[in-house]
């Protein structure tokens, strides 16, 4: 009796003072292992008389259960303490900075081109393209610029050196209008396209660069008239500038390839370098447009008595400057990393009908 009580007291004390999982395991083996003290007592039960066993059995089994439970409880305590100590040692200074990732960006001109493509796509326009190096026919003659006509001079054309074999002198396209010609010559109405791209004129000052971007539009069908032109451009400009409506004015102008021709002005206040649309009393020209000239249609094999339509062209860089408050054109093409970071757009600012343009 006393022996069992003493044994239990000793074991429970030893378990309580075990200071590691390993010491605890040694205790477990010494008590409950094959040759352990409690295991030995349990083995002794077999040699007892049934009466003795009836009395001693529950005592020894009870002892085993209590010691076993004490071991488990102590083990959990020790493991928790060990984990806590380990985690403490694993401390990291998270105020240290991560490795900096470069912030990429989309150029404002190309962002604006994406915006334009998105807006015109909603109106059913697809995107056509043509080469930057054009021949005289596509850039001028087919667009109703007669040879040597003064209107050609207005374009400040860049010429390439004449081909040594053919003598032909190519030009850098002065507008995206040659894409109209290529589109009409390779397809049949109805036509509804825009043509974005690089254009070139020999001009360089605060508001002109020798290279710039245009978006051309062309709609040809049987009954397309100037009212459609007006609606298309008013709708586009309002959506582009993200306003509910636009106070616009169409003004007669002259382009060789359209008749009637017009320029579109928008009413705005630009005081303080900020563009406020539909305010103030000054008009700003933003694009040229008109009904495609019958000569142009004829040249492209389209009967002007059957089909008619409109064309328009606008400067992408300039619209980007107006919309996003970019004061000077020239840095657009200088790739100053600070400028690109300031005026560039996030990769994830792709225009969408749901999220908006930028």
């Amino acid at each position, binding site marked *: 009796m006393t022996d069992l009580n003493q044994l239990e007291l000793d074991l429970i004390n030893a378990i309580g003072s075990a200071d590691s999982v390993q010491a605890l395991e040694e205790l477990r083996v010494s008590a409950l292992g094959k040759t352990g003290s409690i295991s030995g007592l349990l083995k002794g039960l077999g040699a007892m008389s049934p009466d003795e066993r009836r009395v001693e059995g529950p005592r020894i089994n009870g002892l085993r259960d209590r010691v076993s439970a004490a071991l488990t409880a102590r083990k959990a305590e020790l493991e928790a303490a060990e984990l806590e100590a380990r985690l403490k040692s694993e401390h990291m200074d998270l105020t240290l900075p991560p490795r900096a990732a470069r912030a990429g960006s989309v150029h404002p001109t190309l962002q604006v081109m994406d915006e334009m493509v998105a807006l015109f796509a909603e109106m059913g326009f697809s995107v056509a393209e043509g*080469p930057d190096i054009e021949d005289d026919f596509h850039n001028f003659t087919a667009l109703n610029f007669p040879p040597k006509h003064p209107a050609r001079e207005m374009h400040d054309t860049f010429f390439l050196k004449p081909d040594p074999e053919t003598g032909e002198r190519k030009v850098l396209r002065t507008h995206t209008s040659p894409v109209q010609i290529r589109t009409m010559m390779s397809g049949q109405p109805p036509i509804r396209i825009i043509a974005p791209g690089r254009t070139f004129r020999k001009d360089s000052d605060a508001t002109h660069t020798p*290279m710039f971007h245009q978006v051309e539009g062309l709609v040809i069908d049987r009954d397309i008239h100037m009212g459609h032109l007006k609606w298309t451009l008013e709708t586009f400009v309002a959506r582009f500038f993200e306003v509910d409506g636009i106070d616009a004015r*169409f003004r007669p102008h002259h382009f060789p390839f359209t008749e009637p021709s017009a320029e579109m002005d928008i009413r705005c206040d630009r005081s303080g370098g900020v563009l406020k649309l539909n305010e103030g009393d000054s008009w700003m020209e933003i694009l040229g447009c008109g009904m495609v*000239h019958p000569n142009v249609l004829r040249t492209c094999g389209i009967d002007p008595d059957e089909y008619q339509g409109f064309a328009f062209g606008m400067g992408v860089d300039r619209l980007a400057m107006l919309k996003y408050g970019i004061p000077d054109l020239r840095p657009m093409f200088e790739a100053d990393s600070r400028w690109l970071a300031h005026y560039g757009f996030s990769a994830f600012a792709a225009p969408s009908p749901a999220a908006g343009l930028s």
Partner: protein
Amino acid sequence: MKFTLSWLKAHLDTTADVDAVADAMTMAGLEVEGVIDPTAKLAPFTVARIVSAERHPNADRLQICQVETVDGMKEIVCGAPNARAGLVTIYAPIGAYVPGLDVTLVEKPVRGVVSNGMLCSAAELDLAGDSDGILDLDPGHAVGTPAAGVFGAEPVIDFEVTPNRPDWLGVDGIARDLAAAGLGTLTTPAITPVAGQFPCPVSIRLDAPEQCPVFAGRVIRGVTNGPSPDWLQQRLTAIGLRSINRLVDVTNLIAYDRARPLHAYDLAALQGTTVVARAGTEGESLAALDGKTYATAPDICVIADDDGCRAIGLGGVMGGETTGCSDATTDVFLESAWFDPLVTAQTGRTLGISSDAQYRFARRVDPASVVPGIELATRMILDLCGGEPSEVVVAGRTPAAPEAFAFDPARVGRLTGLDISADRTAEVLTALGFTVETGQPWTVTPPSWRADVEGPADLVEEVARIVGYDALPSTPLPDLGAPSAGLLSPLQGRVRLARRALAAMGYAEAVTWSFTSEAIATHFGGGDARLHVENPIAQGLDCMRPSILPNLIQAAARNADRGHPDVALFEIGPVYRDDSPTGQRTAITVVVAPHAARHWSGAGEDPLFQLKGDLMRLLTLIGAPAGLQTVQDAERAPVDPWWHPGRSARVQLGPKMVLAQFGALHPATLKTLDAEAPMLGFELILDAVPEPRGARTKSRGPAKLSALMPLSRDFAFVVEDRVPAGDLVRAVQGADKTLITEVAVFDVYRGKGIEPGFKSVALEVTVQPDQATLTEAEIDALSAKVVAAAGKLGATLRQ
């Protein structure tokens, strides 16, 4: 071009003010550049008369004047030597802004005497003229008369004329359009012929009728030349012209009044009695009125006297110095001719010369104005200079007038959407000078000055712009229905995706010139003679670029020069191989100047492998075919010479198709471009990337998600150093294409334990069983296949 309101009113009876005129011009298609109103700054100034002038008690040079002004008698201190009693001059009250001095007058004592205003000189009012003292005006001017009235100052409208409307280069043409637009009544005085009093002593011969088909001339004898009267001087100087003398001023006035250039020769200076319009000859030159000497040529029209021997003018451009009119001229020969527009335009370009006449003839002067022009000039010269006119001689024939054509007035509505009656259409056209015969269909004849009108669409524009574009309806485009698929071509879609992907990877998009210098183009494999710009904007921009790399390298160098060396730039744009439409390719180009700030955790991934990773990710994103290889083999797959020979490679599809090159840029190339090494980059020719095969359906098929665990085995191979690790990986991948799904390189080792010239490459091979879990024997067999495949490259298992 410019004109004044009073000049316009000589042709148009209107009550409109200058702003209303400018607005009406704008809406009729004349681009108004601005309205300059000199009267605004003269507003505070009025005529005053000095009643008495006495010496200032405290200053010898100053006088104290009692002045009769619009504000009553004023005591004004004046320092001008010519201030005297009785002088009529200009008075500025206290508070007036004096433009010539850039000050606003305040009441303050001058040497102890308060001056209640100021008496002004011409310079102080920003006017031209003698400024030795205060203005000394005609005593006839009443006290209080506004200064603007005294000096004839009035608002000037400055505007641009589009090349199709030479008739707008005369004030009468503008008045006609404004009258048609309802701004007033056209009152241009009719021209009446002046009877000649003797036969013209000069005869005219046309030797180059294709350059000058018609030429009218007349002599006026006994004129008195000299300074023009004030009204004529003011009319010309108000729009920025210089008044020369009466004869020259008359021709200049008519050029602006009627868009009819003329020339007056001093008859006494003419040699012979025959004036000839002929083609220029090589070696001939002319000293023109602008003081410069011009070489003529067969494509330049020359006016010559002495029976055609001596050049005395460039036809339709400028007269010669020797025969110009001076104050001493008493007999004048007047020329009113018509010069071919293309010839005159070309002369302007060839000689770099422009004049009011050249500008007008190049745009096509009204051929019907030849004789009326000379009659109008005669009338004005007789009025201003006196004299006796000869008969008019006309040589040649007036070019044909624009032809009549059929016109259906319903076309106006069809093309514009405007609702305009046929009557209104006829009314507008008639007001603009067109002859309208309203039959079935109509026949419309344009006036002689409207050669730009060739067909019905032109008439529609005339009607629409006069009715006003404000009346245009706003009509929604017919709905074509939502497109069944996207509207971008596969290439356009890829460009768009690549742009967003590269920006997301940390590259900043740049847009740079399509040009570069010839030297750089040649260095980068371009410089084809057909790609040279004949008239470049600058020396360094004279060749179309064969690559975007040099532009981005230079941009990176510029950023470094500004103290920002760490850049990662990209551009997606054209490169030019030849001048044909197919010679233009779309390149996706990246340049990185790796100068990232040091980091506490040590160096990160090698920037070149980071770049390679970005390139490969980009290729995957744009849908490049699977199975791309990085090939680094200077002999069989050389890169372009602008890459670092040891640190560059090609990305290929199969043995031949090159999609991209990447690596470090050659230090010599960077030096050529004044850029500091290292710089890294890639150039991906988008057109070379095959498009995914068009799938019939967008369905992706079932996903194959194996229920069996993948397992991995490590192999360390010893292989000759020259064998690219990529080749080893590919060989191992090929050992069993169904079971081996991934081969990763986890170590490359050279040094102790490895023979010199060899390296150890450690691979982790991932095996995905597809039918059943592999047995040990099957795994051993697979390992043997891996070792055998590596063995073909001379690799052995590391012991």
